[in-house]
């Protein structure tokens, strides 16, 4: 069948860098899935984007839908025809609805009996025709975190759409969205390209845009930027401070990227490096350079959006702006240090944490109450004094000018001021690190004190929010409680802390309320969700998660160790076989109803059941000791060694024996086994792969 390429470019006013990639991919996904719904296959896809355009190309779409015949089932024969064999009203209505004469229908045998049926043939439609509806539908499926409307039709998008280029088989697909009619026209770079260009294929689009100052493929822009950065870094004898996130941002902010190197007055190097880098990164999206020892150099690299020989003036402009920013930062640094960090605590009364949870002063007081107990629980009582000092300081930087200006530097600034005031490293570093981890992929605090402070701070936030009913739902999570929950678990895991979540919650909830059993239950569910999220990110499979977590997760580190062991073992044949035997054991126990008593070894009559019992007794202490040492792989391995005796037991022994005593005894034996096998998790959840 003949196939052809679909090309769509959505031209817009500058779409935010952070949503570009996702929008373009959503658009491609929507197109492919809508094509699929129309029984149209699609080949390879190309997804490009710049701030002003989303481009999707889909190759090898058949030019025509295949014909389709479908069988439509009507009323049952007994309803369709009267005793006289004449069609009833129901039959006639069915025929009328389909527009097919009754004579062309027949009675067919279906699983439910005999029915009046009609086979309808649908001729395949031309793809070009279908696409005129599919493409607008796919555009409407693109979701953005924030949308707007701009013209009378109230169509919503991230930013105003200004043109749509839509081509299939080298012809324009005609449709209308809002106030835009699709065409074969695109536009070049705002200042160095022509505003009206023509393209009829992916390749011609890329080349005509290239000739007009636009690199439409983000991979090409990335390469230009990366090359430019390393070239400029080498020229100034420095090493680039790598920053993947910033790199991605600048790729998505420019159509025609070029890298320039500017410098700033070395006197600013007296400021802490963290502050300089943040000023350059957050406000100006500049990259920083360091020397061989990792010390910051008085240079910056900026990615500009124009290809011009006259870069001197652009460089000077950027340098002037940076100078003003750095002068601000230096001013804040000087002013803030006129008063001591700890003296700012009173002013925290004026900074709202949450309407119902009070100010940051209130939060600080709660942290001071929690910290000694958390330190003890985490087996680090020797840190109690340092934590007390860090706890007093940690929120004080919220009322510094520096943090007011550079919100992202909260914590870091407090730590730096603490260091400048001569606090011991364990104290200032704890303050410095206590907003880490920023996400599940970024590092958690490097010091134990930092980790405990960060953990306690988040614990207070999560429990506080739950205590006033601010429980995250679907998309509603205004205080990012989920992220805070992830942070708590990540810190526990990274620090390899053996703690009880319930005891941590109890500590914190006590500062908010007197009766919290219901809330603790909600929190339990919440943490299960967070833990599953983290495990999924780490790449664990669902069955291992289900199996491991079913044995509890109050000690999250232990739970993860169990899941990991299950994942390691799930490829071992013996283990998988054991898992299915375990399922069988559980079924038998469930069906057996209630029974109790002590197992009586003397009436184990058959050799297979005696062998199983002896085997059980032999491995029991081994499994127990492995579990005590959290060596769950060993525990599972030892269990798996039972496979043969379990199989033999089921082959040779009838559990539900006539003799009631014997039957009960066998059930008791199985119950012992089930208990043992559950020590790591509910292994019946494990699914055979493939």
């Amino acid at each position, binding site marked *: 069948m003949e196939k052809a390429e679909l090309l769509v470019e959505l031209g817009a006013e*500058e779409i935010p860098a952070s949503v570009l990639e996702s929008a373009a991919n959503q658009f491609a996904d929507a197109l492919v899935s809508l094509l699929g719904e129309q029984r149209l296959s699609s080949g390879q896809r190309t997804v490009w984007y710049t701030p002003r355009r989303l481009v999707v190309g889909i190759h090898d779409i058949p030019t025509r839908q295949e014909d389709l015949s479908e069988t439509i089932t009507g009323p049952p024969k007994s309803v369709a025809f009267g005793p006289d064999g004449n069609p009833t009203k129901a039959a006639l209505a069915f025929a009328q609805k389909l527009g097919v004469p009754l004579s062309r229908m027949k009675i067919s045998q279906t699983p439910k009996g005999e029915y009046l049926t009609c086979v309808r043939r649908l001729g395949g439609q031309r793809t070009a025709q279908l696409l005129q509806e599919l493409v607008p539908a796919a555009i409407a499926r693109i979701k953005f975190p*924030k949308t707007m409307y701009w013209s009378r039709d109230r169509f919503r998008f991230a930013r105003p759409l200004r043109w749509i280029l839509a081509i299939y088989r080298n012809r324009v697909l005609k449709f209308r969205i809002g106030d835009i009619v699709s065409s074969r026209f695109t536009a070049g770079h705002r*200042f160095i390209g022509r505003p009206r260009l023509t393209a009829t294929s992916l390749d011609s689009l890329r080349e005509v845009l290239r000739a007009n100052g636009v690199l439409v493929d983000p991979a090409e822009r990335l390469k230009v930027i990366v090359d430019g950065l390393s070239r400029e870094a080498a020229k100034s004898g420095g090493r680039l401070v790598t920053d993947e996130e910033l790199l991605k941002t600048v790729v998505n902010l420019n159509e025609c990227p070029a890298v320039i190197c500017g410098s700033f007055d070395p006197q600013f190097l007296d400021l802490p490096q963290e502050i300089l880098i943040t000023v350059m990164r957050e406000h100006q999206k500049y990259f920083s350079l360091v020397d061989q020892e990792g010390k910051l150099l008085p240079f910056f690299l900026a990615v500009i959006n124009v290809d011009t020989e006259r870069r001197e003036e652009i460089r000077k402009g950027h340098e002037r702006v940076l100078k*003003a920013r750095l*002068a601000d930062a230096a001013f804040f640094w000087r002013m803030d240090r006129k008063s001591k960090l700890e003296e700012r605590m009173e002013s925290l009364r004026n900074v709202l944490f949450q309407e119902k949870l009070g100010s940051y002063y209130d939060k600080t007081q709660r942290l001071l109450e929690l910290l000694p107990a958390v330190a003890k629980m985490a087996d680090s009582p020797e840190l109690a004094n340092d934590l007390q000092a860090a706890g007093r300081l940690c929120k004080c930087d919220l009322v510094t000018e520096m943090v007011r200006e550079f919100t992202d530097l909260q914590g870091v600034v407090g730590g730096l001021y603490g260091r400048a005031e001569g606090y011991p490293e364990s104290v200032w570093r704890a303050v410095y690190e206590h907003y880490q981890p920023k996400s599940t992929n970024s590092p958690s605090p490097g010091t134990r004190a930092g980790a405990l402070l960060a953990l306690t701070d988040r614990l207070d936030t999560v429990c506080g929010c739950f205590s006033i009913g601010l429980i995250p739902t679907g998309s509603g999570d205004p205080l990012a409680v989920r992220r805070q929950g992830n942070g708590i678990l990540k810190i526990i895991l990274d620090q390899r802390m053996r703690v009880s979540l319930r005891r941590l919650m109890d500590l914190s909830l006590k500062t908010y309320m007197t009766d919290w059993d219901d809330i603790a239950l909600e929190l339990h569910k919440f943490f299960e969700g967070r833990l599953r999220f983290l495990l999924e990110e780490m790449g664990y499979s669902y069955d291992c998660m289900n199996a491991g977590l079913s044995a509890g997760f109050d000690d999250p580190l232990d739970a993860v160790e169990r899941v990991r062991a299950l994942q390691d073992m799930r490829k071992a044949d013996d283990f998988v076989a054991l898992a299915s035997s375990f399922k069988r054991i559980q079924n038998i126990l469930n069906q057996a109803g209630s029974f109790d008593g002590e197992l009586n070894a003397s009436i184990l009559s058959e050799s297979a059941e005696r062998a199983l019992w002896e085997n059980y007794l032999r491995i029991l202490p081994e499994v127990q000791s492995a579990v005590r040492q959290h060596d769950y792989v060993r525990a599972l391995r030892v269990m798996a060694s039972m496979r043969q005796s379990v199989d033999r037991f089921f082959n040779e022994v009838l559990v539900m024996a006539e003799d009631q005593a014997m039957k009960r005894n066998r059930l008791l034996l199985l119950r012992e086994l089930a208990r043992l096998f559950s020590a790591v998790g509910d292994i019946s959840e494990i699914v055979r792969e493939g």
Partner: protein
Amino acid sequence: MGSKDFQGIILALQQFWNRQGCVLQQPYDVEVGAGTMAPETFLRVLGPEPYRVAYVMPSRRPADGRYGDNPNRLYKHHQYQVILKPAPADVQDLYLESLGALGINLADHDLRFEEDNWESPTLGAWGIGWQVLLDGLEITQFTYFQQAGGLDLYPVSSEITYGLERIGTFIAQVNSIYDLPWGGNVSYREVRHREEFEFSKYNFEAADVEMLFKLFNLFEAECKRLLKMELVLPAYDYCLRCSHTFNLLDSRGAISVTERVGMIGRVRQLACQVARGYVASREMQGFPLQGPSPSQ
């Protein structure tokens, strides 16, 4: 074209937007924090009537004062505000042309529209848009209004807010706002420096907190009274006075956490009532600027 001094920039913008059919308004004579708050924006963007207006708006932000010591920060800066309602499809191009009218050759500069969505909790207003960066310097805020006074806006207005001091330092290539030539051989410093110093002193140190709290209550009561009498325009003046009084109290550090949320809510309530009252009043007048609708 394109004069390098401060008033030359204003003149060039006036001429440019005059050519685009804008009403050239004069600065409003009540203190505001931004050109958006002037009635020519906040009220005109409401309702169905088309409107094009441009004006300079001195904008007072007490907390931004630096006693005249900081080369880039001011208690009072000047915005050049343009409202195009409804937003024309080529509004970005018009804006870029206006930069050309200031003598800036964009092919030799790094100009970018970076996401920046404007929001004013006190006015119950928000919009979607960008900050415009010219060689890394933020020179303009560009917004498509979506809501004002809690009302959905239809048609959508586009707002262009030029930071005149920023553009001035860019064109004159000076490192301090105070070194800008204002015009007539007088510098920005000579025209405004003392004002910055005295008002910083006032805003941070001298403003009488007790009196300001009283004034806030009085202004609020007056606004409500006028609203009852359906005198929407004078009522809005008092709403603006509440807002500025709140800003003064804030820069004096006189507002606690709980008060803060509450006071912003009170001003917003006034702004929302004014907005509804204004639309009702225009409707009573038959939306005089609407003209015959082409589609009907």
